[in-house]
């Protein structure tokens, strides 16, 4: 007992000390030697950040070098989660206050998503900022800046946004930018975008995204715990986006828009399209679709009211009807059966067919009972008499083309399949490939198509109607323009193009427009020449007799296309005489000998093409060739 007993306790204490330090030592061995690498990685992840350096987006000029788009500072609001108040009540107050300023919900799973949800989704670290809103109104941004003491953890940063000059005039061509849509997100992420980047979502902004956006730079930095940059380890400079020159001349575009607006007002048409193109190259000189919209609304982060107003307008101003509208082309389509019949030898340039104003197509089950025959009428009730193909085009004779298309009695016509082949060759039923998104493809009907769609067989009457651009044929204004250009240029279908030049930041030309033929027509020049002559005759001695100037020889084709539309009671809309409403069409090219411009004018529900669409085309041609307006005639047309 006593000393030895007490000494034994001291020995026990020594053992405890040894065990304690050995345990710590083993643990340190495990951490610092065995698993060191893993912790070294973790330490590196803590301190290194790869930050994108935004590349300045390229701008857009018109063909004359006139600036159409500029980058201006916009504002984005971020939250640094670690700087938000710790106290739950104060935290809620800050979010509430910010939500009120930004006019967004605090808590919402639905779109627009609440701040809480955005924070949950995007928070990576306590001191890495989370983007809450972009394109914040300047006033709101200033208020947030001034209130920063009341809004701890909230920061405002400047971010460029687009400002469009000549906004409504060019809106359909240039388009606008917006957030990456959910379904395209993966695609963009793969290309190095960040989830909250702005990208072009329509127009040139969208199709030329890869050219305009440039390449982001990267900065490899060392940060402290607050995410503050302490040192730059490495960086690669961003490559600024290239700038784009359009084929459009803003001044001409404005003249075209004026002309179209006037024409629409006279025709009481709600929707109108005018497109001008160089038939030698496929360069689009002007493209106007009315009504249009202000694409700057989207740069400011479009408000819900504005978007709903645009989206619910029955005239659909956000839609570029020049490429997205599909309409029966009417008589302007007759150039297709004309070249087809000539090339197929169905008619020769001199072949005449008779028009008596009405064609009675016998019922195929009772071919001899003319009382059961179906009447097909020409627009001219008296008939055109015996006419050849060129005159038929000039006079826009329906009965000539019924027979050419569907045949009559002993005269064999083209038939729908051959007619369809030529239509497709000339670009109907396929997208043109212009640098715009949302192009419609139109429709070239066929026997097979009708069976599949309606479960009915194809009748000769269907071919008759298809031959004059009615029944099922649908075309976009751009497709019709492109087909007309084939006649104008003698047989080449070009891809319409809007970008004339791409230049880099230093002004070096990266690429220049080169004509991009889609295909050469399998049609002889002579046959095309016959149709060209017919179109010239249309102006000199045909349906375009209202054409007033002859300074430049113009060729044209008129069109008045019936269309069917149901009213709210499900009844066909008819005019007071019991006729279907019509779209007014007009196609033209000039000069006749060596065309440098081809154009199409379309007035939705515009009535007679020769009466209402023609003056628009004439104004456009006058503007293009700088022919002054004629003196107002004292004697007005009735």
């Amino acid at each position, binding site marked *: *007992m*006593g000393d030895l*007993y*007490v*000494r034994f*306790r*001291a*020995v*026990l*204490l*020594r053992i*405890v*000390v040894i065990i*304690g*330090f050995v*345990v*710590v*030592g083993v*643990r*340190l*061995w495990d*951490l*610092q*030697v065995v*698993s*060191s690498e*893993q*912790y*070294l990685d*973790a*330490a*590196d992840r*803590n*301190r290194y950040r790869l930050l994108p350096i935004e590349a300045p987006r390229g701008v857009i000029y018109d063909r004359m070098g006139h600036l159409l788009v500029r980058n201006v500072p916009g504002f984005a609001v971020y939250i640094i989660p670690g700087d938000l108040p710790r106290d739950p009540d104060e935290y809620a107050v800050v979010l509430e206050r910010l939500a009120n300023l930004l006019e967004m919900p605090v808590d919402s799973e639905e779109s627009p998503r609440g701040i809480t949800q955005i924070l949950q989704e995007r928070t990576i670290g306590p001191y890495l900022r989370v983007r809450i809103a972009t394109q914040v109104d300047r006033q709101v941004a200033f208020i947030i800046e001034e209130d920063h003491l009341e809004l701890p953890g909230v920061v405002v940063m400047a971010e460029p946004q687009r400002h469009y000059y000549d906004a409504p005039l060019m809106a359909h061509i240039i388009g606008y930018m917006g957030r990456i849509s959910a379904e395209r997100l993966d695609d963009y992420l793969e290309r190095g975008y960040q989830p909250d980047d702005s990208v072009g979502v329509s127009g040139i902004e969208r199709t030329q995204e890869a050219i305009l956006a440039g390449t982001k730079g990267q900065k490899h930095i*060392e*940060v*402290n*715990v*607050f995410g503050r940059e*302490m040192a730059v380890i490495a960086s690669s400079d961003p490559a600024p986006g290239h700038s784009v020159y359009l084929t459009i001349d803003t001044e001409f575009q404005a003249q075209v828009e004026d002309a179209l607006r006037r024409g629409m007002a006279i025709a009481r048409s709600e929707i109108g399209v005018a497109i001008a193109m160089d038939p030698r190259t496929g360069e689009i000189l002007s493209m106007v679709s009315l009504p249009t919209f202000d694409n700057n609304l989207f740069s400011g982060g479009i408000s819900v009211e504005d978007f709903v107003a645009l989206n619910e307008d029955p005239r659909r101003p956000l839609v570029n009807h020049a490429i997205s509208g599909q309409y029966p082309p009417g008589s302007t389509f007759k150039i297709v059966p004309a070249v087809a019949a000539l090339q197929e030898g169905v008619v020769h340039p001199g072949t005449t067919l008779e028009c008596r104003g009405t064609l009675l197509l016998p019922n195929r089950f009772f071919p001899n009972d003319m009382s059961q025959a179906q009447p097909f009428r020409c627009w001219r009730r008296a008939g055109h008499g015996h006419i050849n193909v060129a005159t038929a085009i000039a006079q826009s004779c329906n009965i000539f083309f019924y027979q050419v298309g569907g045949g009559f009695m002993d005269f064999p016509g083209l038939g729908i399949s051959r007619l369809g082949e030529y239509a497709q060759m000339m670009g109907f039923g396929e997208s043109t490939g212009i640098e715009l998104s949302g192009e419609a493809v139109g429709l070239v009907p066929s026997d097979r198509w009708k069976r599949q769609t309606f479960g009915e067989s194809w009748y000769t009457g269907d071919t008759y109607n298809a031959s004059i651009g009615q029944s099922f044929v649908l075309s976009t204004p751009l497709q019709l323009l492109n087909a007309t250009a084939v006649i104008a240029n003698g047989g080449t279908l070009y891809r319409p193009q809007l970008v004339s030049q791409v230049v880099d930041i230093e002004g070096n030309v990266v690429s220049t427009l080169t004509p991009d033929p889609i295909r050469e027509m399998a049609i002889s020049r002579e046959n095309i020449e016959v149709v060209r002559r017919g179109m010239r005759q249309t102006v000199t001695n045909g349906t375009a007799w209202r054409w007033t100037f002859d300074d430049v020889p113009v060729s044209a084709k008129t069109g008045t296309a019936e269309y069917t539309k149901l009213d709210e009671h499900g009844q066909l809309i008819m005019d007071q005489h019991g006729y279907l409403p019509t779209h007014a069409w007009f196609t033209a090219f000039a000069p006749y000998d060596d065309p440098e411009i081809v154009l199409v004018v379309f007035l939705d529900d515009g009535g007679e093409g020769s009466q209402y669409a023609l003056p628009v085309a004439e104004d456009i041609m006058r503007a293009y060739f700088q022919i002054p307006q004629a003196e107002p005639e004292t004697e007005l047309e009735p």
Partner: protein
Amino acid sequence: MFSLRRFDWLIFFPMVAITAIGVAMVYSAFEASLPGGPRPGLDNFALRQLLFSGIGLVVYLVAAGLDYHIWIASYRWLYLLVILMLLVTLAMADPTFGTRAWLNLGIFGIQLSELGRVFMIIVMARVLGVEGHKLEGAGPFLVSGLLIAPTIVLIYLQVDFGMALMLGTVWLGAVFLAGVRWRHLATVAMGAAAIVPLGWFQLEEYMRGRVYHFLYPGLDPSGATYNVNQALISIGSGGWWGKGFAQGTQSQLHFLRVRHTDFIFSVYCEEFGFIGAMLLILLFAVLIFRLIRVADSSRDRYGRLIAGGVAVSLFAQTFINLAINANIMPVTGLPLPMISYGGSSLISSMLALGIAQSVSQRRRPPDNPLL
């Protein structure tokens, strides 16, 4: 009285070495990473720590010079002083870092419980340093328990669980080294063992959560997890040799919080690696073993219990701090003796070692070289 020949260099040297490392680490953990460079004058934490070391050294030498029986003789006054200090602290302290253990004295905050612990080592030594046969009864044992209990409660009320744990350790160490019979110790241990789990499982789930957070206050659970994770990353990324003095990315870029106090060992491990960590542990081990040796060879029971108490206290605090840093134990908030920034802790530690030095200088010649 003070003889150089009898001066215990094996206490002095490790103490000075550890303190020097401490000053360096405070510099690295706090001053080296400031954007404007180290701060001038007494704003500089490393210089402050150096100043505290100087004061501590004087205290150490004075205490070494004094006969430790003076402390023993005035144990009643010391005890009253401890209770008074704790009451004053409790009444006046500012709530800083979630604990109320700090008394604000203008430029310096002072943590009187650190001094109280040293005095309680002496009080315990006096109460339990009786003849062996008296320990057969439960008397001294009960008295020691009754004396220590109010101090633990007062510190617990300051929401300083770490220090309360340390005082408990002071009592346990003294009781153990004094030779209190196993049956007494076993009774206490069994009582505790019976009450703790019973009480624990009686509690509702959320209550248990509260108890947990009450036991480990000052840091919210996520914050605690963050610190522990960052500490592990710091230690682990140090590897064999460390990243070099003031080169630790975790500490210099402030990923590691409370790096100049409770988590300073992680900074040290990051910058000096496994080798450095072993060296520091070796210094502590040498010091603690020397203190136990001094206890064994002391002239009387009081000396034995003082030196032994200092050894147990130093070991317990060091071990717990290292274990927290290495995530073997939950976070309780205890500084690493003589390394963590803080004058109260440093000077109190050196006072304790000075008193142990006094014991050492008055010990009897070794009779058994093996022990």
